[in-house]
């Protein structure tokens, strides 16, 4: 191969990197518009409908054992909901596993209500005209941690291991597009089209992003949970389907949640 055209082309590279600043400033105003819209809506977040429904489902007797979930141990002892989400995912001795909120709810629906694993994992995400139990329970439980400071631990060896695995997955490039989570979420101040992308490896961005999930998505008219967010980002990454409450999903969640430590939790939020 002829080296001269390569050298010539390389030398010309520098010029193009200098010309973007003006256009970016111009479009900031569009982003600010969206932010104002978001704040206007925040006065009446439809997520409250999910929270109320979830509280009802939490207390309602259901399943073959005709029991409520009120005795479910979310990590702070049976029945303690307040502040529990700010310390999840965590290791649970009864299952011997690290669980996030959604996998813990699967566990409780099995042990307390007598559902099979398949029944408890069925219908993880809602869609138009189809409301599901998981979304509502998640909305209720997370809302009970609003204002609590994120405090996810890696003291237990299984938690430390989950953190390392989650980190590996975050940087794992693969698939036909060579993407990893880090491709879109490993750099400061970038956007895809007009969508701002948080740098989830940096404290400030990770805190803002993690503490704002789950969220009511205006564009979809649905409450979206963190498990949903991960599955849909893997789709954009051109990866296969992430199984609901799978070990990889929990490890990745623990990695991201730990990066958000120190910030007050503030969701369910509302997003575009």
């Amino acid at each position, binding site marked *: 191969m002829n080296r001269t055209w390569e050298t010539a082309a390389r030398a010309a590279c520098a010029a193009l990197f200098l010309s973007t600043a003006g256009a970016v400033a111009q479009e900031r105003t569009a982003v600010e518009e969206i932010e104002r819209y978001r704040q206007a809506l925040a006065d009446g977040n439809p997520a409250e409908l999910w929270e109320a429904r979830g509280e009802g489902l939490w207390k309602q007797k259901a399943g073959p054992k005709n029991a409520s979930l009120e005795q479910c141990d979310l990590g702070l002892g049976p029945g303690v909901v307040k502040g529990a989400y700010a310390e999840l995912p965590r290791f649970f001795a009864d299952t011997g596993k690290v669980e996030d909120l959604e996998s813990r709810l699967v566990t409780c629906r099995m042990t307390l209500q007598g559902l099979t694993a398949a029944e408890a994992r069925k219908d993880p995400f809602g869609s138009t005209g189809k409301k599901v139990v998981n979304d509502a329970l998640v909305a209720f439980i997370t809302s009970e941690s609003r204002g609590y400071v994120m405090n996810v631990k890696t003291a237990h060896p299984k938690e430390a291991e989950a953190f390392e695995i989650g980190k590996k997955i975050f940087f794992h490039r693969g698939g036909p597009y060579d993407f990893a989570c880090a491709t879109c979420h490993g750099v400061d101040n970038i956007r895809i089209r007009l969508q701002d992308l948080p740098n989830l490896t940096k404290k400030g961005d990770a805190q803002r992003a993690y503490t704002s999930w789950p969220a009511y998505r205006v564009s979809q008219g649905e409450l979206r949970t963190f498990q949903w967010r991960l599955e849909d980002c893997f789709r954009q990454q051109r990866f296969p*389907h992430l199984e609901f409450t799978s070990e990889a999903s929990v490890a990745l969640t623990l990695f991201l949640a730990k990066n958000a430590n120190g910030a007050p939790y503030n969701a369910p939020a509302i997003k575009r």
Partner: protein
Amino acid sequence: MKTKIIALSAIAAAVSACATAPSDAPVAKNSLAVMKASFTAKGQAKLDRLDQDSLQRLCSIYSGDNELPKDVAARIEKEQLATIKFPADGKLLGDWKSGEKIAQSGRGGQFSDDPTKPSGANCYACHQLSKAELSYGTIGPSLYNFAKVRGYGPDVQKYAWTKVYNSHAFAACSTMPRFGHQGILTEGQMKDIVALLMDPNSPVNK
């Protein structure tokens, strides 16, 4: 092709053997096993997409806090440059109008996409290209006035082809997909995209 893969995995082996390289091989193995157990095939996205070629493996190791060493970068660029295939007819430029449509389209490769339809390239997701399209991303540099600034000659045409074919040939561990090497775009689509960058009448150069 085969020899390249062998050569590159030899680099990987050499790198992981040396003292300064991150020594986290056991977790790497474990995390892939965890992933394999956590995903299921859906549509065109099968489980083999979790497996990495040597480029993906090296660029995953050298990301985040682990900076890519200069010598590894140089070897990656050499290896990836050797993968470039130029069209048999020697013509690098197609139709920029078709190129613009391809650059706008974000479909392709996802399990939610129909694999029988042609893929787009979604250049606008990451790059500014024309003045008219305001909805562009900033993951990559602006390409506005690409050829107007660098010239319309054959060297720049070849450079543009190479970048789109395999971005790592000039920027090891770039986040830009290898559109030609990975078969995302057909040769004809590649020509149309290169015309979008290189044609004096293309909105990129207006």
